[in-house]
């Protein structure tokens, strides 16, 4: 078993029965669910809106190269810089280079999962640059020295008293658990960072090809401060964030907001096309866009799973996933958690190390049911499983077990015999009082559940007897 798989099992064991964790997440998801349902009801036809979004993203992917080049042309025509990063290292180094060239000491960031994917912060910090996460949730997990727990709600695992305790420890002066006062404290602290920040780094929810602009959705206004106060703005995005037309946002923005948080629109919907122009009084002096590949073009080549690149990172599949709700975001050990993370991570970081995530699912399909861009998530988990087996990345014992299973299933006589044997064996285990103990051959089942009561006779035996009697 790989290290990542072992770590996953260890953390899952710890979190699955952590009732405090379960309760905190349940509360978070409950409020999400009611907002999401209310949000959907505001659409005259939510299903049609999902179809439209899936079409827009599919169109973008079908001519990804053309739309990206169009985007680059418009951005550079306005004096912006576009950098094509083949992998994480190239992307990180570009940012560091720009920072060094401009003598940057302080960076303020608005929420960006791509910067998590490429592990940007540690590199900047190692080079003596102070990095401030300014999204409240991101700020909280940064103070805890943790990765985001959830791609949209990074501090979902914490309740207000956890946060009060954290702020008292790291900032001081906390007298209450009152969210308003806690937010005010964080805001005062972050304002100082905004005024000190010389470089702002943001993500992009969409890259709009026809007008060469990036679209950012935030709820705290930190995105606008990060992209307008500092001297330099660098936006980082995966290449799949491209959409063809500005008008596509008319559908994508409300769908993203509804799927993500149940809002009609996020509080701040921002479009940025470049640096400050001569006749403008504010805005950055430089505008850079880093386009990250990092395995995405290979995924584009995969005709079975190309639709994964439609993802708009709304986080709905995480919220809908009963696995996520029980093991929690940190157990995955990946940048992207939940169903989309389990599907995507093997493509970004290797099937060998991360195929276990595709097996850690009951394949219930709640993710596919909720996905606003109709990614066939749970079927991709099945395909990843098949790919893991076919590429020799599963233990030989599994192969052996299923070879035996096949041998058994290819003969009704063997099927009947082993069914009979299994029932007898289970009866014997119970009579010996071994049920649920480590000596129980079914221990993996009976550790958590009572052993099933199987009838003395199988359906087949009953049927054959009745049939013989009637003949």
């Amino acid at each position, binding site marked *: 078993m790989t290290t990542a798989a072992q770590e996953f099992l260890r953390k899952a064991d710890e979190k699955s029965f952590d009732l405090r964790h379960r309760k905190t997440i349940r509360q978070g998801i409950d409020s999400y669910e009611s907002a999401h349902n209310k949000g959907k009801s505001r659409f005259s036809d939510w299903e049609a809106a999902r179809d439209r979004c899936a079409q827009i993203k599919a169109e973008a992917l079908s001519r990804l190269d053309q739309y990206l080049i169009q985007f680059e042309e418009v951005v550079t025509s306005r004096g912006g810089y576009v950098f094509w990063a083949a992998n994480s290292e190239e992307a990180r180094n570009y940012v560091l280079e720009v920072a060094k060239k401009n003598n940057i000491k302080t960076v303020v960031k608005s929420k960006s999962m791509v910067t998590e994917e490429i592990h940007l912060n540690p590199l900047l910090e190692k080079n003596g640059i102070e990095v401030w996460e300014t999204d409240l949730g991101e700020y909280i997990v940064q103070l805890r020295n943790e990765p985001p727990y959830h791609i949209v709600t990074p501090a979902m695992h914490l309740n207000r008293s956890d946060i009060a305790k954290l702020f008292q420890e790291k900032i001081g002066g906390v007298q209450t658990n009152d969210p308003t006062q806690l937010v005010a404290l964080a805001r005062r602290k972050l304002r100082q960072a905004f005024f000190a920040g010389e470089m702002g780094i943001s993500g992009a929810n969409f890259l709009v090809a026809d007008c060469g602009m990036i679209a950012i959705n935030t709820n705290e206004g930190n995105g606008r401060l990060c992209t307008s106060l500092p001297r330099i703005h660098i936006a980082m995005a995966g290449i799949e964030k491209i959409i063809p037309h500005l008008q596509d946002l008319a559908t994508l923005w409300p769908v993203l907001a509804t799927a993500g948080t149940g809002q009609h629109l996020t509080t701040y919907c921002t479009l940025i096309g470049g640096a400050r122009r001569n006749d403008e009084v504010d805005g950055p002096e430089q505008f850079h866009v880093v386009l990250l590949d990092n395995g995405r073009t290979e995924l584009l080549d995969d005709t079975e799973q190309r639709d994964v690149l439609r993802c708009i990172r709304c986080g709905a599949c995480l919220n809908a996933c009963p696995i996520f709700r029980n093991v929690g975001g940190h157990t995955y050990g990946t940048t992207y958690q939940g169903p989309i993370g389990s599907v995507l991570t093997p493509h970004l970081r290797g099937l060998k190390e991360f195929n276990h995530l595709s097996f850690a699912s009951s394949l*219930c399909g709640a993710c596919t049911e909720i996905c606003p861009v109709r990614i066939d998530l749970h079927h991709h988990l*099945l395909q990843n499983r098949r790919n893991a087996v076919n590429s020799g990345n599963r233990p030989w014992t599994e192969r052996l077990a*299923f070879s035996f299973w096949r041998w058994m299933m290819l003969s009704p006589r063997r099927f009947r015999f082993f069914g009979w044997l299994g029932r007898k064996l289970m009866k014997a285990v119970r009579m010996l009082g071994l049920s649920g103990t480590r000596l129980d051959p079914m221990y993996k089942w009976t550790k958590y*559940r009572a052993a099933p009561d199987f009838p003395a006779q199988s359906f087949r035996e009953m049927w054959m007897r009745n049939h013989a009697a009637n003949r």
Partner: protein
Amino acid sequence: MAEVLQRIGLDVFFPEEQTCCGQPAFNSGQWQEALPVAERFVRVFATAETIVCPSGSCTAMVRSFYPELLANSPLRSDAEALARRVFEFSEFLVKVAKVTDVGADFPHTVTYHDSCHLLRELQLRTEPRILLRNVKNLELVEMLRSDECCGFGGVFSVKFGMISAAMSETKCGNIDATNVEFVTSCDSSCLLHIGGILKKTGSPVRPIHLASILAASPNSSTAARRVHS
């Protein structure tokens, strides 16, 4: 199931040659092991007019996944034809046989669990409920989040037992909150899992397959056996 089908006037055959549809191997990524078992299924049922199955999961395997699994098999077109003739039990009764009242009598309180494959692969939400509402003396009590997975997931339930059990604890909490006597569903595998957790936690709620409820009538042997076991 056989009793109910016979009661509504159908001839029921049970090909004794049948074994498994292949889903355990398919879901574990072992498609090359699943393929011969699936091909065997296609051959065994080749001449059957209509195939009725008391499981949403097995039905989904044949209907939704055989065309993919057997894509390069010489039996591909047979599999595709078969996929159109296989029905889940409640689906068959309501949509094909057009029977919504099978004359069952089950004087108990019951809650219904939507099994995942039945609901999300086959899109069957109302059919089992229609059948339950027409059972004499049965009171159907809906649980909170009846469509949330029970955590079974086949091999998942032993490979990732802790996650599976945690999921089921939530499910069983919602079942217990309804204060019913029975929890029913269209999939024995979910009921096996739910039943195991209910029993372990000392819950009085007992699992029962929809078919056993529909087979129940004052003079039926199956129901008496199930209820008093």
